[in-house]
């Protein structure tokens, strides 16, 4: 037993200091473990995805289009794809596992000529039998591999009557009714290796997907990250990157921090407010206007928006430039019509609105609302596609107030918005949702008489769209839909605000990436310098 030191207080202090020192040792010890081994050509992406989906073909889309963009399209391929090879043009339909196709004159029969010498990454040959195996798995209830969950992700397969093998590299799909977007909508009907499915079933695919894509699934840390390695034997252009890792970082501030700290090389959905400082710190920022319509959908059956003049007044009352350039720092482009400039159905001549508050006031007065109007607008507070919804809606609210359009904003979350719209009784005069018009086959819920959740109805528009849905000639179909867009724009069915540019930020070492006019991207030319 020691009796030496008389000063208990000082001893306690020493104990405290020892604790602090021990903590410091722990801290520095930990810090040395921070950096992992570097692979030469590894791209690490910070994604806004909140969770990793099941990795089985169709189920990947349950993580939204992000899942399809950053997981599905790396591992799997469809017969067709979105062609994003030219960054100056809208993304049309491109050849993927089918190198070409013939369409019968009645539009009911599609014969696909498959790429030869394609193998799944487990060595299984991709041929007509593999196509039929997969399609039966999606839609033939009598097939032993049939999985009822998957068909819910593939609305396009409802048009398929039958699929037949012509020879080893040719298959024919017979449709139950003509559908001109068949090729376009097949883009995410992925093909998985029949050998892998035979052995491990859907559950195996969900954990270890085997496709024909440019990358091979490598590993997954549940809801944290997923990585892929280069498919050395890829039938197309073999990627330059050895590895792609996707880290899940749903919080936008955390994404920016991850990029700045070097944890990731590339972030999706970068915050417009961070752009200036990121550029100043030497990061590259990219963006390109794409088919993403951020608008207010007006309830056209109810007062006051049952009067076209009030809808037009909305479109003349807002300063889109201020929103796109000032508020969003150029990460969006002003929208003056229904179709985005990156749409296949865009016509510049349809830009019939501009910033003209005097005209807006006049239109309101003509409609009998010289004292202005009071409206309630529901909007989604957050989510990848809603952009900076709160700030944007508040800016619009202030602009509209200048012409006596008094807006009450009703914030809801994504599920709340869906529930209200689905139930059909929102109590709002308009809703702010952002979406893509890339798939005209699914415009019904926004734009079709009788099924539009916003009450929009224009018989002329519906006729043009119905015709387009069965017109297999690309140019003729585009013309019909351009005309439909012109009608909707003249109707002022929505208050058109901006189109998104899918802002990204990346480190200077990412080379060769040119952002297409699309939500879809490919990593063909990307490398790390």
């Amino acid at each position, binding site marked *: *037993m*020691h009796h030496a*030191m*008389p000063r*208990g*207080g*000082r*001893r*306690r*202090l020493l*104990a*405290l200091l020892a*604790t*602090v020192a021990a*903590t410091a040792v722990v*801290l520095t010890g*930990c810090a*040395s*473990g*921070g950096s*992992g081994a570097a692979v030469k050509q590894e791209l690490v992406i910070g994604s806004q995805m*909140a*969770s990793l*989906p*099941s990795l*089985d073909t169709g*189920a990947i889309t*349950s993580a939204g289009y992000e899942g399809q963009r950053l997981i599905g399209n790396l591992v799997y391929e469809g017969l067709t794809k979105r062609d994003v090879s030219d960054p100056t043009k809208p993304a049309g339909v491109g050849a993927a596992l089918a190198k070409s196709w013939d369409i019968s004159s009645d539009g009911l029969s599609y014969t696909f000529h498959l790429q030869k010498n394609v193998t799944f990454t487990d060595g299984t040959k991709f041929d007509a039998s593999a196509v039929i195996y997969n399609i039966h798995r999606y839609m033939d209830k009598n097939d032993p591999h049939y999985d009822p969950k998957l068909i*819910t992700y593939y609305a396009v397969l409802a048009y398929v009557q039958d699929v037949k093998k012509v020879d080893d590299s040719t298959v024919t799909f017979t449709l139950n009714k003509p559908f001109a977007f068949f090729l376009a909508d097949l883009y995410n009907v992925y093909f998985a290796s029949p050998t892998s499915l035979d052995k491990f079933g859907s559950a195996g695919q*969900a954990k270890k997907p085997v496709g024909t894509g440019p990358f091979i699934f490598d*590993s997954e840390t*549940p*809801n*944290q*990250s997923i*990585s892929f390695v280069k498919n050395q034997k890829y039938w197309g252009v073999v990627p330059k990157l050895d590895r792609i890792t996707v*880290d*899940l*970082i*749903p*919080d936008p*501030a*955390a994404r920016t*921090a*991850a990029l*700045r*700290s*070097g*944890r990731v090389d590339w972030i999706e959905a970068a915050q417009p407010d961070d752009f200036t400082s990121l550029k100043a710190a030497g990061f590259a920022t990219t963006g390109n206007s794409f088919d993403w319509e951020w608008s207010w959908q007006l309830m056209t059956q109810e007062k006051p928006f049952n009067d076209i003049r009030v809808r037009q007044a909305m479109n003349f009352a807002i300063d889109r430039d201020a929103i796109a350039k000032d508020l969003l720092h150029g990460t969006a482009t002003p929208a003056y019509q229904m179709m985005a400039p990156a749409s296949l159905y865009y016509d510049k001549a349809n830009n019939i609105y501009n910033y003209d508050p005097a005209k807006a006031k006049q239109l309101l007065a003509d409609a009998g609302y010289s004292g202005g109007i009071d409206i309630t607008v529901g909007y989604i507070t957050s989510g990848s596609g809603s952009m900076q919804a709160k700030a944007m809606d508040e800016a619009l609210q202030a602009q509209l107030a200048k012409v006596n359009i008094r807006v009450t904003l009703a914030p*809801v979350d*994504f*599920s*709340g918005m*869906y*529930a*209200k*719209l*689905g139930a059909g009784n929102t109590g709002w005069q308009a809703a702010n949702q952002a979406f893509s018009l890339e798939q005209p086959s*699914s415009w019904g819920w926004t734009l079709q008489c009788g099924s539009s*959740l916003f009450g929009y109805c224009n018989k002329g528009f519906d006729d043009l769209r119905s015709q387009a849905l069965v017109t297999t000639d690309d140019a003729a179909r585009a013309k019909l839909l351009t005309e439909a867009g012109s009608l909707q724009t003249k109707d002022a069915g929505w208050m058109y605000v901006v189109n998104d540019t899918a802002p990204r930020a990346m480190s200077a070492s990412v080379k060769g990436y040119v952002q297409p006019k699309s939500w879809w991207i490919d990593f063909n030319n990307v490398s790390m310098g």
Partner: protein
Amino acid sequence: MRHNRLVRFIGSRLLLTVITAFFVSMIVFFAVRAVPGDPALNVLGLQSTAADREALRRVMGLDQPLIVQFFNWLGHAITGDFGYSYSQGRPVASVIGPALGNTLLLGLAASILAVIIGLAMGNAATSRWRGLRRTTDWIEAVFLSAPQYTVALILLICFAVLLPLFPAGGVSTRGNGSVTDIGSHLLLPAVALALAPGAQMARSLKTSISTLQATELLPSLRARGLSPLRITVHAHHNALPPMVTVLGIQVGTMLGGALFVENIFSIPGLGALVVQSVALRDYTLIQAVSLLIAVIFIVVLLLADLLNALLDPRIRVGQL
């Protein structure tokens, strides 16, 4: 006799746990269904037909009366079957497993840190040096009042971005699951979670030690010739049970704080899972996660009580 008492104590607490879990499940079950939202609509999208949504609702079992749904869920939950998560496309159990592991790891790291902070600050606050006491009080006030969300962001910016000592998020570096690697990932979020509970524990320790300092115990121990170290041990022995109780209660605060901290440090834990599952109205997932969080909290409180019984014989024999 004493043994019996302890067994009865544990038994009654476990019974209480089951009852509490039942009521938590029931309240959460009916509360989330009162919030507008349709899980089938979330899965199928607005372009789906009403008939399709109704069919999926049938598959999900949402077409039945609420009370039937609840007992259906309860019946399965008792057998360990927590159902299928439609937003994640896999069974609930397989979603929760890894998340639970991450949150427990983070919670453990934060608890250890909180104890260290509590001991260090509690001692500093009762130091003989006035300056140190004052500074500690000031730091304690900051720790107690700083919102975890802000603390997490500041730590992230300071120690992962400006001064890149630690990784900016995640649980581990891919391909590296070593203890130091995981430790370096968890340190910042654990600090963000530990500050307030640590300060609370410091307060408790400070009160105990000051109370003790006002008595004749310490001088008499010193008079009996005990070394200062032994005296410190005695002083802390008395102060420990209240500290353990505070820590147990603070675990609740940490579980709440994990909601924000896990998001900022992109740690896929239970907190992040609650946020996601509520946003997507994934009823089965919400049910399971909230039940799990409630059970963790109750079990931690039980463990705290048991630990106190070990530390303090008076509690063990029911004299307090």
